[in-house]
């Protein structure tokens, strides 16, 4: 009887409150994170000045922390795609409050991950030679190199993710524009591109989102597959494995979901979103995390069993180095963090609470970081000629830069949630729709306005 279902002013108020009210905590957090990021930038500057020699990289372990972090952050960027695109395509309605959090993780994780190929270059001022542009020297990038594939894949994914994030943001930016005043109104107005919300615009937007969801999925899968090709294309023992493509994609989705759970939990607490992010959201993501943990175990088991059966001397050297040798403590920590801790927490409904999933997620992030490290360093340290084996020790420069990337992620996320509603307001409202009454008779009956003539 004329129920005001669409007067969702309280929802809009709640979700735009962070934009209009700033607490002192915000400034403190931004300052702290900004300082750490500045330290990282200074460390990078020092490294550019003196050379890669400041890191722990050496002959023959030419890749270390930077590539580990690169793969780690690109892996985390798979959170958004899974949640947004797949769940959108299968019409899973519980995704609605979660999509923008996830898409934001993707965009920022990609940006941070894409910094690392620049950071690890020996001559980073020449990075633009990876770009295919016509130069007077008539020489182009080598399209046979997996690093060039990386360039194309990551740029495509970054562009796609940015647009995937921005398009559904437009209606919310319009909403903020309508509530803002003065200078802010103009900025949000410009960003909202004059959006009004006509049926034509909504229809176009929804079609575009559908196409983007279909398009971004293969791109996301290809991105981490191509990152895995950085390793599997080289004849290095335990790198040259056909399993790397699917293994890396599964690992990426695994770490991405873990990052998403942590981000959501933090947002829920700091922005008071208890009315929008329910325990059931964490439960559902927790079930997905459990599934990915089992999948991860499956891949690791399949790969290691194959290597052990093959008994190839080069590969066995790496195998034993990780399982019983120098890297054994890290290896078993990884197994604990990726499986032994998350599995019981996520398998039992009693422990699959918000706190439980967050603990499991932290363990997974540590475990997945270690997994990337253990893929890269033991193999490089134990290649085919034993005389040239070597170990790797990270140096302060690498640790500072790595810490600053975590701070950068937190900082970017904080700033984003300050300027844009972190939960997609219009998508949330759509989920609340009642069953439609379409015929004039139904409409009039419902309103008690039954008439004999239209």
């Amino acid at each position, binding site marked *: 009887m004329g129920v005001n279902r669409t007067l*969702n002013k309280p929802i*809009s108020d709640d979700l735009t409150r962070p934009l209009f009210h700033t607490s002192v905590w915000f400034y403190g957090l931004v300052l702290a994170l900004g300082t750490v990021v500045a330290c990282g930038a200074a460390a990078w500057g020092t490294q550019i000045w003196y050379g890669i020699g400041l890191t722990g990289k050496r002959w023959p372990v030419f890749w270390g922390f930077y590539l580990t972090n690169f793969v780690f952050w690109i892996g985390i960027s798979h959170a958004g795609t899974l949640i947004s695109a797949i769940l959108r395509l299968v019409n899973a309605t519980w995704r609605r409050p979660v999509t923008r959090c996830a898409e934001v993780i993707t965009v920022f994780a990609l940006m941070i991950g894409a910094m690392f190929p620049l950071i690890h270059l020996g001559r980073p001022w020449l990075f633009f030679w990876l770009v295919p542009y016509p130069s007077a020297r008539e020489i*182009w990038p080598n399209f046979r190199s997996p690093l060039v594939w990386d360039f*194309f894949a990551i740029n495509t994914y970054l562009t796609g993710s940015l647009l995937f994030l921005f398009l559904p943001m437009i209606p919310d930016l319009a909403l903020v524009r309508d*509530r803002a005043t003065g200078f802010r109104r103009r900025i949000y107005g410009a960003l909202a591109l*004059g959006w*009004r919300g*006509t049926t034509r615009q909504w229809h176009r937007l929804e079609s575009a989102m559908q196409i983007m969801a279909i398009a971004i999925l293969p791109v996301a899968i290809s991105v981490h597959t*191509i990152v895995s090709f950085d390793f599997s294309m080289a004849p290095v023992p335990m790198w040259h494995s056909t399993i790397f493509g699917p293994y890396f994609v599964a690992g990426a989705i695994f770490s991405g979901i873990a990052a998403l759970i942590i981000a959501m939990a933090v947002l829920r607490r700091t922005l008071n979103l208890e009315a929008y992010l329910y325990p059931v959201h964490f439960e559902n993501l927790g079930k997905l995390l459990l599934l990915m943990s089992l999948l991860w175990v499956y891949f690791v088991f399949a790969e290691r069993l194959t290597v052990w059966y093959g008994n190839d001397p080069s590969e066995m050297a790496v195998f034993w180095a990780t399982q019983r040798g120098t890297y054994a403590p890290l290896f078993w920590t990884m197994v604990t963090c990726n499986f032994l801790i998350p599995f019981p927490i996520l398998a039992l409904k009693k422990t699959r609470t918000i706190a439980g999933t967050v603990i499991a997620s932290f363990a997974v992030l540590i475990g997945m970081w270690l997994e990337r490290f253990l893929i890269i360093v033991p193999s490089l340290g134990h290649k085919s000629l034993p005389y040239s084996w070597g170990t790797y020790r990270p140096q302060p420069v690498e640790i500072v830069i790595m810490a600053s990337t975590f701070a950068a992620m937190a900082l970017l996320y904080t700033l984003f949630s300050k300027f844009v509603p972190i939960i997609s307001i219009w998508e949330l409202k759509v989920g609340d729709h009642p069953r439609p009454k379409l015929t004039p008779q139904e*409409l009039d009956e419902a309103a008690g306005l039954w008439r004999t003539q239209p």
Partner: protein
Amino acid sequence: MKSIYGLYSDPDTAQRAVDRLRTAGATDPAIVVISSEPFEEYEFSHRDHATWMYWIAGGGGAAGCAFAYWLTSVTQQLWPLNTAGMPIVSGIPNAIVIFEMTMLGAILATVITLLVSARLPTRQEHIYDTEISDGYILVGVENPEDANVDAYHAALESAGQGRVKRTA
């Protein structure tokens, strides 16, 4: 910019308003419905159905594919350098780059089509009311002819609980 519109608090009333406007003589392209969320289940959202976006996305993908094919094979032959004994124009590695550019083409084509067909960004004045952001649904006519304005007013008022506004 002249306009006449009603602001309603629920989509059922809005649907009725659209029907009443049609009876009052407004043509479908002239009726504007603006809301802060899409109402795909309602008939008033279905007037602008267009599925040609998928074709344009496919076209963009094809353009990306062609460009990448040209880029990889032409540049590899400009200064042919033997690497690892692989063919000068290496098919499978090129396919990876071609795939990425195809998807990029499809994505960019979709976004550009969205912006163009949704008439974004726009500088022109169009019918709008900031109360839409509070959840009201606007049903109205932009630049109505003077003869019909009263009929429209009556139609909008009779739809149910809501406010009718006019702008000059």
